[in-house]
């Protein structure tokens, strides 16, 4: 394993002000994530795992504590710096897919490249390439409403991959899918991990978490446990 962590979090807390009362969403969390890890963040709803994901995904900054991403201090970053980190380093996959409804699959995938200033022709060829990689090469010009749930999520994964990010951050990626399609998507993530990607998976389902190589359990804003996955579900995927 690489010595330099991709993500280094030390004693971070996130406090919300609610009706004059301070609510701790995260309390004093520390963890490191290294390149090519496959991590599942687990916890019941209200545990703070979504807040942790937002912080890890640079959508939000912690109230206190240290967060360095590839050695860069995230706390010091402006909104625009955070946007740039999200654009180049993080690929988001959401439970509800979050595709632009009126854009075709290719256009959706091109979007992050637009924001990083990639030329039109390169955008298109890269978008088509990743779409083929996730197995949707024949659905290039379909709009989200012309695709099945599984296909939409594949488009979302392709969008996350197209910038070659350091981390793929998936928030309940199977939550809106049936079991069979969910398994297909989890296989896709496993393949990505096997190809050398770093994947962080946020879920409340044990079955889904078991695909990961390391499981971090969150409860009441604290890390409850952080251990290697012993029940290696991911090996089943190769059957």
């Amino acid at each position, binding site marked *: 394993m690489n010595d330099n962590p991709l993500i280094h979090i030390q004693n971070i807390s996130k406090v919300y002000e609610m009706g004059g009362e301070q609510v701790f969403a995260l309390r004093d969390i520390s963890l490191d994530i290294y390149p090519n890890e496959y991590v599942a963040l687990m916890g019941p709803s209200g545990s703070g795992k979504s807040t942790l994901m*937002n912080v890890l995904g640079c959508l939000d900054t912690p109230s206190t504590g240290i967060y360095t991403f590839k050695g860069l201090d995230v706390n010091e970053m402006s909104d625009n710096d955070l946007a740039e980190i999200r*654009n180049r380093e993080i690929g988001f996959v959401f439970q509800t897919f*979050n*595709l632009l409804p009126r854009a075709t699959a290719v256009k959706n995938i091109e*979007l992050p490249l637009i924001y*990083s200033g990639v030329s*039109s022709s390169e955008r298109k060829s890269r978008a088509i390439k990743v779409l083929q990689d996730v197995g949707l090469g024949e659905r290039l010009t379909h709009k989200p409403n012309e695709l099945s749930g599984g296909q939409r999520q594949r488009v979302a994964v392709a969008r996350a991959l197209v910038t070659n990010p350091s981390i793929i951050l998936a928030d309940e990626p199977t939550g809106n899918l049936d079991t069979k399609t969910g398994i297909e998507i989890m296989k896709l993530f496993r393949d990505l991990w096997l190809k050398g990607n770093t994947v962080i998976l946020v879920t409340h389902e044990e079955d889904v978490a078991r695909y990961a190589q390391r499981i971090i359990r969150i409860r009441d804003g604290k890390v409850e446990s952080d251990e290697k996955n012993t029940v290696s579900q991911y090996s089943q995927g190769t059957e």
Partner: protein
Amino acid sequence: MNILESILQAFESVRSNTLRTILTLLSISIGIFSIIGAGSAVATLDSAVNTQLVAMGENSFMIRRTPTINIGNSWRKYRNRKDITYAQAKEFKNNIESTDLISISDETDGYTAKVGNLSTDPDISLIGCDENFFTIKNMQIIEGRSFSAQEVLSATSTAIIGNDIVLKLFNGRKAIGEYLTLKNQQFLIVGILKSQGSMFGKSLDNQIMIPISTFMRYHTDEWGSSVDITGQAYSKQSFLQTVDESIGTMRSLRNVKPWEDNSFEIETNETISNQFASFTGYLSMFGIASGIISLLAAGVGIMNIMLVSVKERTREIGIRKAIGAKKNWILFQFIIEAITLCQLGGIIGIAFGVIAANGLSTLINAETQIPLFWVLFSVGTCTLMGLIFGSYPAWKAACLDPIEALRYE
């Protein structure tokens, strides 16, 4: 590239909310329409007037009780002016030394001319004038002759008629030497005027000239019998001198005290065109003012539609921010969208304004003028509007918190 995306997005939002967007764009169109319409109308009128003025004769001037073009409340100023009587005008004509080309005339409308069973519509202008009138006004007599000084002196029943009347009453037959009837009085036709076309939709050939003496005796209308004096200087050099002499003579004839203003108007091509300019000035001011008011209303509409659009697309904004759109990109996207919407409305307004101007120029037989300045002004105004009224919604969009926005249903 990003601009293109934003412009396409604007068209997309027109398409997805057709009625709402079109209603808002309509108010922009109306605003731009009135600006362009007024601009084109003014340009068209200007060119028509300038053409006609040249036709009026180079060094001529006119003395009247009130100005030809009168705008606003200034009628109070002229209300108490005494008529320029025929006697006064004749005295003026005798006293002027620097030119002999002085004509006395008066005009009244609504006459019907008859020959046998045929009669015209009651829309003929009857002009009483003298032998100098045609020279000064640059009117050519293509058939027959002008009045003689003797005819004017003795108030004969002779007439010189315009082309429209020839066409209506004689229909190919010879008119010279024939008689026509005006208000039960018979007139011998001695001359026919060369056709002059029309001005502001009114035919200049639908008129009959009779000697001013005859006119004064039988045809002065109840609105008063103030006559017009038209004069022409011999040359450009003597023009100002002749005008000065005319003013002096007229003041003394009308007993104007040295400290008082003229109790009459003296008009030259220049003063008429100035009067006209002030008229067209009012017209363009009115057009621009009403345009700006409706554009303000439209601006509020644009802001509203953009706010709704931002609200509806909160989630989209969240997605864009999550995958790396910076604040300025979002700001830019929505401002471009607002500008595009405004331009869309503006283009429709420009098109209709130009069409309306074409209609006007056809109506008054003038050459169509498309006021390029006003077109550019409109495009600029639309851009500015999009910028002003799109900024707040765009700013709201740019400042959305990505987490909140993504959660928005």
